[in-house]
């Protein structure tokens, strides 16, 4: 899947169908995969490049997922970790859709509330719901504020 570029850079081969997530914050590629539920046991064919040189970002990560087009709610999740990420949907080697990621105003079922006393951490039939504020994520059930380490709370 990867080969050494004659000029010294590392290149990932193009994919025929699927999604390319470009401009991921350097070092976050594996967290992005975790958010997408892609683990060692899933069947997707993956290419991951981390700390790739980028004119715009200095360093960036890139993920290519074959035969899977990301849904909007999945893109929302990525925005939490990699707000500058660009999503390219590929069909027959061509980019048919290119979109940025946007952090939504409300996150439903994306982040687990770190408050053990929160009603969303019980067997109740509700999804965690957070309002996205400049200072962090605010749980609309228990008012807890998640400021740091958001990646570890992503469901």
């Amino acid at each position: 899947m990867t080969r050494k570029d004659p000029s010294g850079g590392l290149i990932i081969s193009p994919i025929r169908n699927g999604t390319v997530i470009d401009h991921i914050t350097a070092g976050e590629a594996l967290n992005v995969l975790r958010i997408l539920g892609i683990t060692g046991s899933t069947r997707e064919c993956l290419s991951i490049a981390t700390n790739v040189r980028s004119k715009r970002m200095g360093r960036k990560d890139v993920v290519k997922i074959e035969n899977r087009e990301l849904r909007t709610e999945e893109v929302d999740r990525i925005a939490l970790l990699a707000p500058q990420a660009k999503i390219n949907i590929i069909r027959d080697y061509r980019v048919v859709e290119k979109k940025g990621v946007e952090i939504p105003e409300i996150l439903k079922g994306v982040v687990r509330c770190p408050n053990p006393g929160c009603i969303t951490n019980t067997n109740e039939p509700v999804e965690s719901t957070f309002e996205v504020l400049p200072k962090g994520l605010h749980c609309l059930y228990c008012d807890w504020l998640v400021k740091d380490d958001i990646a570890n709370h992503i469901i």
Partner: protein
Amino acid sequence: MYHIISIRDFERSDLDYLLDRAGEFDTGKYRPQALDDKLVALLFFEPSTRTRMSFATAMARLGGRSIGVDSVEASSIVKGETLADTIRVVSSYVDAIVLRHPKEGAARLASEFASVPVINAGDGAGQHPSQTLLDLYTIRQSMPIDGTDVGLLGDLRYGRTAHSLALALSLYGVTLHTIAPGGLEMPANITLELRERGMEVIEHANVEEAIRELDVLYVTRIQRERFPDSASYYNVASSYRITPDLFAGVRDHLMILHPLPRAGEIDPAVDQTPYARYFEQARNGVPVRMALLHEVMK
């Protein structure tokens, strides 16, 4: 449908309206049988004396009736039923639900599944809006709330009444003075939120330093279970004890409030001073809850 879930949901005008209504109920300006065809469910999944009884009293004074659950053990929750299902079912029996529950956010969840109004009577370490309203009502009986200096003393970390009250007071241009033992200070995110709401928050090392600047001193219980052993509890608790000798040089109209039950934070000798207003505060639970019940079921 009108739910009473969190003090955060209220604007200043909403609070003033409810306090005015409570004043009318307090002075007998209401139809005694105003809720005579109404039934309220008091679902208390945590212990309560004052809150439960004052809601029941308020309902009875308005001619309505109440039914309820007093503990988790006496409910289908022990059989594994979710709160959501309990609320759906109880909604079909009654005209409103008053809920106390150990989990934070339980009342918000209940409001999503209920087909009748829900009043939050305390959800874990979260919100307790009817307590906050009766606290405001008690202050307003003696002085305008605007511009006062209010001290919060005790467990400001876990004390839900302190958080709710501080948020409400931020709508009234109050200066907040916090006095808490080490480790039980107001959580930084709440202090930040209060300051973002424009409130001046002053932290004090001890009550002696603050008391002469205050119009209201709101004392909360220091919970024994927060300390590793009895000795460290008594050490802290004794340094936060209100005794009559602290009142030298205080403002004449100083009010000492406490949501009760107290566990030694206020010397019984204080009860005899003109500053003690906590029993009056507890009594005010009835007109305030009459106003809330009437508002959601009228």
